[in-house]
């Protein structure tokens, strides 16, 4: 026995589960809170792992691996499932040869997301089973179980995590990988894998029959288990909610569901009949609640627990006990907020300071640069989903015509552009949009922690790869006017933006400079600047850059006769990265590079 107990996050545990259960191929596009799954797959040499350009491609390639009979894992955040939904729904019909697990990491509370959709609805919608772990041990074990069920029932299986599972650590018992799974090979089976209407019509009844079989299986599935306590309160729950409920109401009886779709109806009926009051504790949608109600069983769910945001132990206690123990503190409630902010020296800052100054309508996208929304830059007007900036800008252009010319610009990061911006730009070129797109090319997927993508020239494993040439790509799509700018040169960049936004044709500006946190490249010096307090007039031009290294120091107006400034700016030498932007915007030459003093 070679067993070892260590602390793993839910994401690390999923990766370990893939390793222990013989996964051969794994794919993902980074997205909080799912990113670390593939980052940890990287350590297991026997698994081919890749960053795919987007979740749809990731799922399609995982599916191909499973068509060959290999076990595959595909991971994404909840909104990634929207992108991958097309192959998912039809994969439910084709089934697979090797097991496939689709891990979706939901983000209740939207810690780092644009919505809090509940992925369990996808399991029902696409007619595939879904498992939901409650801690890291289960995250590992359920990954293996999902692959077994996938092969046994010839279906993709979804594994739903949430932020609190993915990013919590708990103790996991490690095992060695199981005996090798079947060798992949090419086997033709066109009636099953070619979803022409004639074939698909034959597959749909197979899907319905499979869901019936799975419903029966769910009744005796050991991970749907009853923990008897007092019979006054019975709680049906799954995922992280199980832990919160056990924490605050350990004496209750529990039906803990490891499989949240399809539900074990007989087990639920028998559990419900033996408790006086039945609760369901679940994050986000009343997914279990509605199905239990449809069975004609009285149950308390969203009437007692919030529909919006994530559950917490206190909220679960409030719902189960019926009173409000939530402590509040007046001091805590009235503090200045501390939102995330672009780093000192971030290459996006220069672009947004120009867009802010020009008062343009900026259609934004998903990434660090969405932070350009925050004051004092306040230079993002829309942010919807990956790639939406381009379509949004084109729609504004087509609706407003000449009215929009010179007023609208789209911004998108390099990784997001390659994920789902290419088709938007194709539309813009094809349908003659008078739109300017700025690609903020920082040579990485910055927001999720700097992952590689097809534009960086490196793979998940750090091997060199073909590096997409964004200039050539934009031109190949049909954009004639493509300019590259250095975002640290404000005046030159501003001239280009001013010229391009007025152009009544599609145009692309590529702002090229590496993320200031990049481990590979560095263009800012890191040498801090300082502000000469004699020359500073307190005009606040540097503060409008929204750099965390620059702060305002109040001064007494009456002191120092003659001077009328209300205060002055000061640079924190520990934070300053020497990007020179503040030096460029200072009209009084008060900002200079430190000369060794």
């Amino acid at each position, binding site marked *: 026995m070679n067993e070892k*107990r*260590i*602390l793993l996050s839910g994401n690390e545990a999923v990766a370990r589960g893939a390793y222990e259960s013989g996964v051969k191929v794994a794919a993902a596009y980074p997205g*909080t*809170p799912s990113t*670390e799954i593939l980052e940890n797959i990287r350590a297991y040499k026997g698994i081919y792992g890749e960053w795919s350009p987007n979740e749809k491609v990731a799922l399609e390639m995982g599916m191909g691996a499973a068509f060959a009979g290999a076990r595959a894992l595909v991971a994404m955040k909840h909104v990634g499932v929207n992108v991958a939904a097309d192959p998912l729904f039809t994969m439910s019909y084709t089934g697979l040869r090797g097991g496939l697990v689709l891990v979706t990491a939901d983000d209740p509370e939207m*810690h*780092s997301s644009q919505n809090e959709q509940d992925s369990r609805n996808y399991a029902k919608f696409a007619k595939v089973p879904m498992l939901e772990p409650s*801690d890291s041990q289960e995250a590992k074990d359920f990954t293996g179980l999902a692959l077994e069920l996938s092969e046994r029932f010839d279906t993709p299986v979804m594994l739903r995590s949430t*932020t*609190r599972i993915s*990013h*919590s*650590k*708990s*103790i996991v018992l490690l095992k060695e990988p199981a005996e090798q799974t079947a060798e992949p090979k090419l086997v033709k089976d066109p009636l099953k894998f070619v979803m022409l209407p004639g074939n698909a019509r034959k597959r749909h009844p197979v899907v319905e029959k499979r869901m019936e079989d799975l419903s029966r299986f769910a009744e005796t599935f050991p991970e749907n288990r009853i923990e008897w306590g007092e019979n006054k309160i019975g709680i049906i729950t799954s995922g*992280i909610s199980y*832990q*919160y409920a*056990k*924490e*605050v109401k*350990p004496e209750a009886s529990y039906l803990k569901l490891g499989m949240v779709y399809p539900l074990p109806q007989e087990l639920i009926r028998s559990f419900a009949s033996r408790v006086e009051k039945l609760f369901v504790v679940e994050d986000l949608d009343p997914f279990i609640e509605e199905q239990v109600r449809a069975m004609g069983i009285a149950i308390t769910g969203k009437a007692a627990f919030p529909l919006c945001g994530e559950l*917490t*132990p*206190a909220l679960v*206690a409030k719902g189960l006990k019926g009173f409000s*123990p*939530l*402590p*509040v*503190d007046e*001091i*805590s409630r009235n*503090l*200045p*907020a*501390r*939102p*995330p*902010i*672009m*780093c000192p020296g971030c290459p996006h800052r220069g672009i947004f300071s120009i867009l802010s100054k020009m008062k343009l309508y900026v259609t934004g996208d998903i990434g*660090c640069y969405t*932070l350009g929304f*925050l*004051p*004092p830059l306040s230079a993002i007007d829309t942010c919807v989903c990956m790639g939406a900036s381009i379509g949004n800008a084109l729609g504004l252009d087509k609706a407003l015509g000449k009215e929009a010319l010179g007023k609208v610009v789209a911004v998108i990061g390099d990784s997001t552009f390659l994920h789902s911006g290419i088709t938007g730009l194709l539309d813009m070129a094809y349908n003659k949009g008078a739109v300017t797109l700025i690609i903020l090319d920082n040579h990485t997927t910055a*927001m*999720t*922690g700097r992952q590689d993508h097809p534009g960086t020239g490196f793979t998940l494993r750090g091997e060199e790869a073909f590096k997409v040439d964004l200039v050539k790509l934009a031109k190949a799509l049909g954009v004639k006017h493509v300019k590259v700018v250095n975002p640290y040169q404000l005046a030159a960049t501003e001239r280009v933006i001013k010229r391009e936004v007025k152009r009544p044709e599609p145009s692309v500006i590529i702002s090229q400079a590496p993320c200031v946190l990049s481990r590979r490249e560095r263009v800012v010096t890191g040498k801090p600047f300082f502000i000469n307090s004699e020359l500073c007039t307190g005009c606040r031009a540097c*503060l409008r850059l*929204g750099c*965390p290294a*620059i*702060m*305002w120091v*109040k001064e007494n107006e009456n002191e120092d006769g003659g001077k009328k400034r209300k*205060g002055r700016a000061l640079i924190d030498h*520990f934070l300053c990265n020497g990007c020179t932007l503040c030096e460029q915007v200072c009209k009084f030459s008060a900002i200079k590079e430190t000369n060794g003093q």
Partner: protein
Amino acid sequence: MDNKITNILIVGVGGQGIIMVSEIMADVFLEAGFDVKKSEVHGMAQRGGSVSTHVRFGPKVFSPLIKEGEVDIFMAFEELEALRYLHYLGPKPTILLNRQRLNPPAVSLGNEAYPEGAAEILSRRAEKFKGIPARDLALQVGDVRAVNIVLLGALQPFLPISEKIWTENILSRFPAQAQKVNLEAFELGRSA
């Protein structure tokens, strides 16, 4: 140990090394034979935002999140952030406060005032209170990044776990050239 869970809340600003400290703690509690859970949020938090990490240990831990009003040990890496989580404090908390201020954007811009009196407010609510100039101490050992290890050292005397388990874990995390600095930082924190 009695049959009780110890709840530790660590708060501060993204980039201060809070996640590493919580990783060390969680490993140390596991090594000492406890059940352990910890929870934090990645992603946006990396960009200088408010960060909080929950660490819980004891015979059997269910929730990775601490309930408001139940924190036993509160480690604050920054004064304003310390005040943001007052509603989490239990009835008799031990509080470690890094005497450091980092201005949030609205304060940097001069639009809002940095709150005064964090140390007084916290010491009034604490059963045991320690204010630590961790940044000065880290600079004293020669690496400003060691602020987190200084604070970890300051925590050690409040927990029933031998110093050796802590220092061994710290050694395992740093390359050879950084080990001495971090051990010194831990020691300075312990005697702070």
